[in-house]
């Protein structure tokens, strides 16, 4: 098949599982330029095709898998793809980018994305081999660990098949079930695995042979890719990222006082060194792995055994988020135990972040006498008890006993139990916080609150990086503002601050991170604190691949478009400014650690929120205005919002 357009096929696969039919969707090619891919393309379909009152686990919800115009291009960083749907955890948007090889493989099979709708009458999987698509029975995959499913599919369809699947947790509709790509990369958040499970779809395996995608200016792309590879090797932050991966952050974040510890009661952990990157490298026989065409190669594969804690190379090693939330946040100071819990979550298809925080909610509530053995089925819960956590992880995935309650997530579980236990659910919009203590970085607090997907640490780069002016004369600045200068951010802002200057910084950073979600571009290569490739170069990559005469302005606008479309999606689902809130704990002093006594100023937070809405062109309830939506070129979204409020008035 000939690729007509550089950067995309203009072929999106629609799969109706109810009728077991497939169809090819073509778009006006101009829409690819407006949206660029990923989150934006997914939102186009979700907004147009999913009724606002759709139940997340009903056949009417749609699971959208999407790539971008740069996915599959031969350059580091383009290896992600998007999954989006209505979230069964928050009731709002679930939108998640996952690395690995699957997105590029889908593109090599001549597809830009897949819209999955309806519900199969029995468990099935999709097998996509170039243009050919089959919906096949998955009886033999039912109830199996993710690695077993991947092996079965590869034995059947060839070792080069790439797999995307929900786990047992997804089959059992755990509200924070994830989707995994080849057992190493994850659409972790928002319960997308449960949406997949609710459709009786266990996996999507794909193999493509069109491996040389059409690139408008291969020479230019090659030039940037070569520069990029050199930069990756000599840039100190990136080479360290290659050596230790994200696990290197645990100890420094603990020293700085922002490592979630004992369910966000403390910000430093006495056992941080025992679970940090250096210890992991030393103790667990590790090696590095990579995503499609990426020279950074930051992924870990680990193995090791200590007592009951066995870790295999069947799954990727634990990343920063998982180490913190299954480690310090539960008081666990043994890297083998942390890695074993991480592996168990990956094998069963559970988001490690929500799992860790749902467990820590239960432990704190037990300690405070809000939950008793009558609730837990006789279990006594305590900190640093990884054997019990492993049992509970199994119970959650199979919705057994107390695990059935925990499978709802900490917010829904607390709402069911009551007794004041809601206070200890560290969530926003029902989704658990990530491994970042916002009391030391208030931009993250704003991000947790206003994120369309519930608490999310990937809304924007974090405040501490932008607290100094930087040194423009250095070839590689360590950490400073200079990379943001082309956007007009010129002055540093303190970390614990939500003044107008901070809100402006946050918004620009949110656009930049939005660009990553739109382009399905890996944050570990181009976000300001890494800048192995600069923002201007990222725009050049888009131009070289597609042939568009584009600019940083146009690319950032695509990022902004996604943020506002996501907001509109949630407004249609009934969300308002009241849902942009944080647990009370964030406004109370940290109990211990380097930042002991620090808390967020509630007045500044509320004012910061209003400033954010106003700067975004949204009203005081956080609803995007007609003028802003028209300015972003998506005036049709305003029609949807107007229809909704007219229906509300009736």
């Amino acid at each position: 098949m000939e690729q007509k357009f550089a950067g995309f096929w203009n072929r999106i696969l629609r799969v109706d599982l109810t009728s077991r039919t497939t169809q090819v969707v073509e778009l006006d090619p101009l829409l690819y330029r407006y949206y660029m891919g990923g989150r934006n393309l997914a939102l186009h379909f979700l907004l147009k095709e999913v009724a606002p009152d759709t139940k997340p686990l009903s056949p009417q919800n749609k699971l959208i898998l999407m790539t971008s115009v740069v996915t599959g291009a031969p350059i580091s960083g383009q290896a992600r793809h998007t999954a989006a749907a209505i979230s069964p955890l928050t009731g709002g948007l679930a939108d998640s980018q996952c690395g690995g090889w699957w997105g590029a493989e889908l593109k090599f099979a001549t597809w830009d994305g897949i819209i999955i709708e309806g519900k199969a009458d029995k468990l099935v999987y999709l097998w996509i081999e170039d243009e050919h698509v089959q919906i096949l029975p998955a009886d033999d995959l039912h109830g199996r660990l993710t690695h077993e499913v991947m092996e079965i599919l590869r034995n059947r369809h060839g070792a080069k098949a790439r797999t995307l699947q929900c786990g047992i947790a997804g089959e059992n509709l755990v509200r924070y079930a994830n989707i995994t790509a080849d057992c190493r990369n994850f659409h972790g958040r928002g319960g997308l695995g449960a949406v997949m499970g609710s459709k009786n779809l266990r996996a999507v395996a794909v193999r493509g042979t069109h491996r040389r995608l059409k690139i408008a200016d291969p020479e230019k792309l090659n030039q940037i890719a070569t520069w990029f590879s050199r930069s990756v090797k000599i840039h100190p932050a990136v080479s360290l990222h290659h050596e230790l991966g994200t696990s290197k952050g645990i100890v420094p974040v603990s020293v700085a006082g922002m490592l979630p510890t004992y369910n966000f009661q403390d910000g430093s952990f006495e056992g941080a060194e025992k679970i940090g990157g250096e210890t992991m490298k030393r103790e667990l026989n590790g090696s590095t792995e990579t995503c499609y065409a990426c020279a950074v190669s930051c992924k870990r594969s680990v193995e090791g055994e200590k007592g009951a804690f066995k870790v295999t190379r069947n799954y990727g090693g634990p990343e920063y988020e998982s180490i913190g939330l299954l480690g310090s946040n539960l008081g666990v100071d043994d890297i083998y135990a942390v890695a074993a819990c991480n592996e168990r979550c990956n094998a069963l298809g559970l988001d490690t972040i929500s799992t860790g925080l749902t467990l820590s909610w239960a432990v704190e509530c037990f300690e405070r006498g809000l939950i008793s053995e009558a609730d837990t089925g006789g279990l006594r819960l305590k900190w640093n008890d990884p054997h019990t956590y492993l049992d509970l992880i199994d119970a959650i995935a199979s919705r057994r006993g107390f695990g059935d309650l925990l499978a709802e997530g900490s917010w829904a579980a607390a709402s069911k139990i009551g007794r004041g236990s809601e206070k200890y659910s560290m969530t926003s919009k029902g989704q658990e916080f990530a491994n970042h203590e916002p009391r030391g970085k208030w931009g993250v607090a704003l991000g947790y609150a206003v994120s369309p997907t519930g608490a999310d640490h990937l809304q924007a780069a974090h405040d501490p990086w932008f607290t100094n002016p930087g040194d423009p004369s250095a070839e590689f600045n360590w950490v400073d503002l200079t990379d943001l200068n082309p956007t007009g951010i010129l002055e540093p802002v303190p970390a614990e601050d939500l003044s107008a200057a901070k809100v402006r910084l946050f918004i620009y950073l949110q656009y930049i991170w939005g660009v990553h979600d739109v382009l399905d571009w890996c944050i570990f290569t181009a976000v300001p604190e890494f800048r192995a490739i600069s923002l201007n170069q990222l725009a050049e990559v888009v131009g070289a691949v597609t042939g568009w005469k584009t600019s940083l302005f146009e690319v950032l606008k695509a990022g902004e478009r996604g943020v506002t479309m996501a907001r509109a999606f949630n407004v249609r689902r009934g969300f308002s400014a009241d849902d942009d809130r944080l647990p009370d704990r964030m406004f109370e002093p940290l109990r211990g650690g380097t930042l002991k006594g620090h808390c967020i100023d509630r007045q500044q937070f509320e004012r910061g929120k209003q400033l954010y809405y106003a700067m975004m062109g949204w009203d005081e309830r956080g609803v995007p205005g007609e003028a802003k939506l028209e300015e972003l070129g998506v005036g049709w979204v305003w029609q949807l919002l107007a229809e909704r409020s007219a229906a509300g008035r009736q």
Partner: protein
Amino acid sequence: MWIKVKLYGTLRRLASPQTPGIWQGEIPEGWTIRDLLAHLGAGRYEACAAMINGAACPLETEIPADAEVVVVPPVGGGLC
């Protein structure tokens, strides 16, 4: 006087080659953590937080003899 310094993030490049992430050596009495970092060649804004013998302290703190110092750069999370 003799001290041991654990360095994290990009500061690791200042460590002794034989001991990744660790610098050990003699420094004059009265030096603060900032003096030490300047001596090791850290960038002006490169360090953000520190501990001496397990207790958090400002970068202006004077280093006592036989101290174990930990210094970290501005932190984001897995990125730092």
